[in-house]
């Protein structure tokens, strides 16, 4: 599947044109992206570290994950929307940036892993602290860390 036309289209949308022409929009949206990263990262850390026996130990992982889910989805949505706005400033450059491609791949993997595997594990075994559950926590942490590292690298490449 070729995504290039989609990226080209994004750069020509009114939003893309605005992002390219405005002096402050990119900086402001970047700050919003960072703020949503803080919350999203905080939620993921609290859930995955709980599986590994750290942090909010008095509550089971299942109940904790269930209670933090709205915040996880909310902060993920803000990151994605602000991310698309940032992308619309330089879509073609990002399209050819290996760090950007890696970030999108890891993001897709991390999100799918959360909703397809983790969420189900937590629901079936709310008190899970078995070895498989811990492996799930470690995989999740590594996937999200990769998203962060690749994201950081976009500006360096």
């Amino acid at each position, binding site marked *: 599947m070729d995504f290039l036309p989609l990226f080209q289209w994004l750069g020509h949308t009114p939003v893309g044109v605005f992002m390219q022409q405005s002096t402050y929009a990119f900086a402001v949206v970047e*700050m919003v992206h960072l703020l949503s990263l803080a919350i999203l990262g*905080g939620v993921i850390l609290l859930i995955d570290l709980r599986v590994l026996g750290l942090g909010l*130990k008095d*509550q089971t992982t299942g109940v904790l994950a269930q209670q933090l889910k709205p915040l996880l989805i909310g902060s993920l949505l803000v990151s994605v929307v602000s991310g698309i706005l940032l992308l619309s400033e330089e879509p073609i450059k990002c399209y050819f940036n290996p760090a950007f491609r890696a970030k999108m791949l890891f993001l897709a993997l991390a999100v799918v892993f959360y909703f397809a595997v983790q969420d189900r594990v937590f629901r079936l075994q709310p008190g899970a602290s078995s070895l498989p559950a811990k492996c799930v926590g470690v995989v999740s942490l590594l996937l999200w860390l990769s998203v962060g590292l690749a994201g950081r690298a976009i500006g360096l490449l």
Partner: protein
Amino acid sequence: MADRTILKRRNPERKLLQEFCQWLYDSTIGTSIRESIWVFPIIETVHVLGITLLVGTIAILDLRLLGVVLKREPVARVAGGILPLTWAGFAVMFVSGFLLFWSEASKSYANPAFRIKLMLLLLVGLNPLIFHFTIYRTVGAWNNTVVTPFRARLAGLFSLTLWAGIICAGRAIAYFQK
């Protein structure tokens, strides 16, 4: 005349601070970090991702105080579980942040975003001190309530606002760095 006296009195301390920053900037460690291709970006990456452990965790405690998340969990239990992680995050951020400052000290000294960030950090440090020695002493009485006392909600709101300001000011440092 009066203005000049104030300036004269403040000048020596200011100069001392500026010279200290210049000394850090010129030091072997400061120069090595600045001139290395990889060291600065690596420390910066640790500092950016460390936001999740410091601000991400404390924000969830603040949101509990505001009654937004973890409503069924007692406040003291949430605080007890989260704060060790927040302190670990603080250690990561302090060390990485100081190393970044070390390599850019004389530029940071004159950077308005850096100055604002430091002032906000001072305020965000005062907030939990006040919170812990005042309203948190009576936490036993409101531990299980969804809606915490006004002053506890105020502390949560202050913390969230100040940390958001610190992240934004921190990002802005790069825009003002010359």
